[in-house]
């Protein structure tokens, strides 16, 4: 069995959506027309100057971009390197997720769709989707695992207040994996009028590439901001947390083909990588197919997908985007992990030395900084993907 794509330009998967041997569109025929239409149109639409202008204007005036690149002075001193924080937590709705939903809602309008469906785990992507649907007057249905609905009541309330319908996913393990299954099934059952806004760089081609491109604004701004601040647009390291991997894809994107920039992805180790309660997909997974693409998947020897564990619902996913699987296997990316305990400690520490309460997901990224062996001349950008308000209930248990 031959590899599919031997190209090394990480920014462009093959025509069939492969990064190396990862990617593709493993979907039932019932989804073929939708996915094919999207595949045929997405690059054309995304390169249309009028589309770019509309999205850029919304990112500026509605989302609040560009987000600041902040020099974290006390953290830098402590770590012994120059640490910059890309403040995605300051985006409207509190995380990077809206970069993608803004792009996809404008794209859905261009495709003539009238209804939006989405999946959500912690509810951040659900809120970002409900927000843009309200903005654009589109019907919005969000699929969310029954267990997550119980765990994330404030985000469920936000989605409802924004006018979205939240549908509990009651199948399987009743979490993000199953919410994604339910959303895909809903798309199969109503293909013509509906666009499915996937929240991460996962799913069948062209979603991983499309979402990466919408999130790539993060690294586009980083380069400009580093150039302005330091006269050099290339850092030595970019660090981001990875569940499915959308903020990491966005933070890495414009550095993917810059070999001097180390790309550090941080997975959630839960109770410890080998504890049996973990979400460190690259460490525990094997090649497989999940939600329509070939990637690295946490599964049993018999090929049944297993339920991961992480304290942060946003990293609690048994797969990883195909781009990240390729970065991992080609060793272009460095994949590390942080446990629940380490992430919690980092969340409190960053709050107290920088005055920024990060999301639990983001806190994982901070946990690896002392382990990178950084030098005083190193310039490190941490993607501060979201703010910690949604995690207050967890944080309050540890005050």
């Amino acid at each position, binding site marked *: 069995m031959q590899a599919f794509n031997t190209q090394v330009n990480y920014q462009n998967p093959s025509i069939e959506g492969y990064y190396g041997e990862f990617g593709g569109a493993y979907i*039932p025929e019932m989804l073929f027309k939708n996915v094919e239409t999207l595949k045929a149109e997405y690059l054309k639409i995304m390169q249309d100057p009028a589309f770019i202008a509309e999205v850029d204007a919304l990112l500026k005036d509605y989302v609040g971009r560009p987000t600041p690149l902040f020099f974290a002075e006390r953290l830098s001193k402590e770590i012994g390197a120059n640490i910059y924080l890309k403040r995605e937590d300051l985006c409207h709705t509190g995380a990077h997720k809206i970069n993608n939903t803004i792009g996809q809602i404008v794209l859905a309008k261009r495709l003539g769709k009238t209804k939006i469906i989405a999946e959500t785990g912690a509810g951040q992507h659900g809120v970002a989707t409900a927000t843009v649907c309200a903005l654009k007057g589109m019907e919005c249905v969000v699929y969310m695992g029954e267990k997550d609905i119980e765990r994330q009541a404030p985000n469920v309330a936000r989605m409802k207040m924004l006018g979205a319908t939240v549908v509990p996913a009651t*199948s399987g393990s009743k979490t993000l994996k199953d919410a994604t299954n339910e959303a*895909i099934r809903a798309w*199969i059952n109503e293909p013509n009028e509906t666009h499915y806004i996937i929240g991460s760089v996962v799913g069948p081609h062209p979603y991983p590439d499309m979402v990466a491109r919408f999130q790539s604004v993060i690294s586009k701004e980083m380069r400009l901001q580093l150039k302005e601040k330091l006269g050099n647009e290339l850092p030595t390291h970019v660090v981001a947390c990875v569940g499915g991997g959308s903020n990491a894809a966005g933070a890495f994107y414009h550095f993917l083909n810059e070999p001097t920039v180390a790309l550090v992805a941080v997975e959630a180790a839960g109770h410890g990588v080998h504890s049996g309660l973990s979400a460190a997909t690259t460490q525990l997974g094997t090649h*497989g197919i999940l939600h*329509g693409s070939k990637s690295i998947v946490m599964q049993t020897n*018999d090929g*049944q*997908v297993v339920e991961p564990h992480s304290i942060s619902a946003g990293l609690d996913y048994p797969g990883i985007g195909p781009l990240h699987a390729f970065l991992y296997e080609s060793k272009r990316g460095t994949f590390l992990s942080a446990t629940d305990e380490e992430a919690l400690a980092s969340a409190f520490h960053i709050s107290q030395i920088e005055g920024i309460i990060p999301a639990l997901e983001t806190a994982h990224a901070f946990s690896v900084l002392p382990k990178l062996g950084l030098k005083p001349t190193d310039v490190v950008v941490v993607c501060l993907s979201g703010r910690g308000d949604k995690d207050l209930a967890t944080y309050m248990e540890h005050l």
Partner: protein
Amino acid sequence: MARLENLFKAQSKRVLNVYCTAGYPDLNSTLQIMESLQENGANIIELGMPYSDPLADGEVIQRSSLHALSNGMTLQVLFEQLQEMRKTIHIPVVLMGYMNPILQFGFEAFCARAKEVGVDGLILPDLPLYEFENIYGKTIKDNGLDFIFLVTPETPEERLRKLDSLSSGFLYAVSSSATTGKDKDFTQVAIYLERLQQMNLKNPILVGFGIKDKQSFDAVNEFTNGAIIGSAYINALSKGEDVGVITKEFLNEVLGN
């Protein structure tokens, strides 16, 4: 394998393919159910290989799959159960399932085992055309297995003809773009099936999704070679009575015996 080909040569109308989930309702009920289906008039058995994330299936089949998995069903166990099946099962048997468990088993090993136990064909809804043509199709054909593609009312004509040309055994016409187990508006379905009928395709056509009783079975037989029943039969089995009795009652109703 010639079983599917021979079946359609001998019978061009009212071919009934019944789906059941391997290892459901009990781990060891697989063969008993297959024998009962054969005895009561099913022409083809579509044996579902349970998967944790069956995207193309509705909740009835997903529930039966999870149940079968918790009973301990795996591909290894399934092939052991099927080792002797050709001593009693003489009608065509096709395996239906998803790519991930098969990749873990090893695609080549899977096809070889399927051939060895006497399986006739495969239905793998998430194996796309591109990957079929470039990687997996050859292994399937080398093992003498039929491969059955799905087509839907949204499948463009050119693609439909291509899927037909690559399929053998039969072509699986999904009655509308939907997951299994949903009710359908049959006037729309009839228009679609009539169009398929007029295309003079290479393969016989069996209609699936939404066929649940005599009325719906009769309705689609006007235009096609037969139908596939899945969720309705799983629902009947889920009542927990004797599988022999349930199967007999169920098939008698559908076939009008």
